[in-house]
């Protein structure tokens, strides 16, 4: 074993410190890091800092964490714990990375629900698998053929196509001495549209939460592109945790992320938080957005209506499935939802898994 020169040891230790804190740093990057420091001089600690930042490709949202580790390692300072925000009016968006992105929501000027308090009620509950197993199996079987699709830019050969495929035609012609006897055609491929499920997990929906989360799990597995978020007083992205194929395990993992389960409902703020994170809003662009919620909004109805309007402009369709729906001709009774109705492509039955599944699978036919 070769000995490590004392001069570069701190840099190697720093790389492994970052690795311990969950930054993805491969050995070749460590090598590049040391080369980079050599290239810059180094004239001072700032050069070391800038090299690490560039070579280790530190994402902008983990910069503070990185800065703290850097100071702790090279300047001998203790890493201060980040001060917790005391402000209850901040809407948290949660992604399962162990980090939180705080998005400020509009100030509460008027309270619509008089009993509602600004304080959040947080909870933890392991959601059991639920819902209609048969309906979920039906969804898995028919997802590939029945989910809405859109035209892709890519093409594939097709007899029924109307675009001439020059490459295939030429190959054909060569076989016949350069004589074009028959044109070959192609047509645009179809790709499944992304589906974004926004699931209300607040107290008023607690009875159907097992069914809706099980449905989300089935959909994430059955569809090529699907995303699932939970809404309550916060917004949580649960897609990654639902990727586990065992439904029980997936729901346990998802439950551990959702900290606002059975709490209050601030759909408008949660939707605004969804739209404020460009990566999340990008997921909704051109997508089918399905909101599973009763629309019992504790926050300001205006906030919810304007955020639904924005969402509708971004997405291909926004469908609102409410468990309060009694039949096909459902007219929403809650104030916020009836105001938001003009922006929705459809408001339908969300009371049973069967109803939700048949709604989602029939969109392609209706549209």
């Amino acid at each position: 074993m070769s000995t490590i020169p004392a001069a570069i040891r701190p840099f190697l230790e720093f790389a492994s410190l970052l690795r311990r804190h969950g930054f993805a740093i491969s050995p070749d990057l460590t090598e590049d890091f040391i080369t980079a420091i050599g290239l810059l001089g180094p004239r001072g600690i700032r050069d070391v800092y800038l090299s690490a930042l560039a070579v280790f490709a530190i994402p902008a949202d983990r910069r503070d964490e990185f800065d703290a580790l850097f100071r702790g390692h090279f300047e001998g300072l203790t890493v201060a714990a980040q001060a917790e925000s005391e402000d209850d009016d901040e809407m948290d968006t949660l992604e399962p990375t162990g980090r939180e992105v705080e998005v400020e929501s509009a100030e509460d000027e008027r309270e619509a629900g008089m009993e509602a308090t600004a304080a959040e009620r947080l909870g933890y509950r392991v959601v059991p698998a639920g819902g209609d197993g048969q309906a979920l199996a039906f969804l898995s079987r028919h997802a590939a053929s029945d989910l809405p699709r859109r035209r892709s830019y890519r093409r594939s050969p097709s007899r029924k196509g109307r675009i001439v495929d020059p490459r295939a035609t030429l190959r054909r012609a060569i076989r016949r001495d350069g004589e074009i006897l028959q044109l070959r055609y192609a047509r645009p491929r179809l790709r499944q549209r992304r589906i974004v499920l926004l699931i209300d997990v607040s107290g008023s929906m607690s009875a159907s939460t097992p069914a809706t989360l099980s449905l989300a799990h089935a959909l994430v597995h059955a569809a090529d592109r699907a995303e699932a978020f939970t809404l309550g007083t916060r917004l949580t992205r649960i897609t990654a945790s639902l990727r586990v194929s065992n439904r029980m395990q997936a729901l346990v993992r998802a439950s551990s992320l959702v900290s606002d389960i059975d709490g209050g409902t601030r759909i408008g703020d949660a939707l605004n938080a969804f739209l404020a994170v460009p990566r999340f809003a990008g997921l909704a662009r051109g997508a089918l957005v399905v909101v599973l919620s009763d629309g019992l909004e504790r926050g300001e109805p205006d906030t919810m209506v304007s955020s639904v309007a924005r969402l509708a402009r971004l997405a291909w369709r926004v469908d609102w499935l409410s468990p309060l729906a009694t039949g096909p001709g459902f007219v929403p009774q809650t104030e916020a939802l009836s105001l938001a109705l003009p922006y929705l492509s459809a408001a339908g039955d969300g009371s049973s898994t069967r109803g939700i599944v048949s709604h989602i699978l029939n969109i392609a036919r209706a549209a």
Partner: protein
Amino acid sequence: MAVRSQIAGIASPAALAAALTDAQYIAGEELATAAYLALALGKPLLLEGAPGVGKTEAAKALGAILGRNVIRLQCFEGIDASSALYDWNFAAQMLAIRQAGEDHVNLYSDRFLLERPLLAALRNPATSLLLIDEIDRSDHEFEAFLLEFLSDFTISIPETGTERAVEPPVVVLTSNRTRDLHEALRRRCVYHWIDYPDPGLEADIVMMRASTVARATADAVVASVNIMRQEPLQKPPGIAETVEWAEAATLLHSGGSNWPQAFLRSIGVALKDHDDLTYLGDRLMQILPGEAA
């Protein structure tokens, strides 16, 4: 990996920053360092940031100071080999078959090959800078393909064989971060997050880009734009918008409008979303730059 400490006569981040300034691009210390390291280590440079902070401009300026042609590949969802790598000129091939008659003709020779950005950069690595713009808009399949391309710089064409770059070309990737890029792609690159510049720096940029604008106007516009960026707008004004707003307002002012009016009438250059304008509403008059110059 060959490490070069000097690229086109540039031997330090400070020298690179100075050269970029000569090329009409003001780069901060972090950007200059990241770009210098990318060039020296021979790795691609990945620039991420909000729309309108000058990522593409940075790549173009880099191309200018290195004396390289910028070959730009604009990514989009569904981008495929025939628009990114190469395509065959089918019409010419057909004609060639016809003309050849009984003679032999090689249909897959170079004269029928249409170079697309990636192949063009691969064939002229010493004289070109490959700009892969808005990589976040492409889909995962293309990103996976790029990963392979960026590690060995080879393209295989089934009809002819494999093309290999004699040296790794200079590559700049940009992303608006509408989605997270794959960790493996980030690892292959030197990374820099371009943020909105400090007010002082941004005013310098306005002065450099728009020669008609007075310093006081530039400062006032930058201050006002910075207030707007604090608001939860759908599309906060980028640097290009700042420059254009300053220019537009100066133009209107020289045409006889007084200052607040000139700014108000040209607001469409800075804020391009009806919701944003209604959101700011009455407060807009307070945010607007007041008496400038």
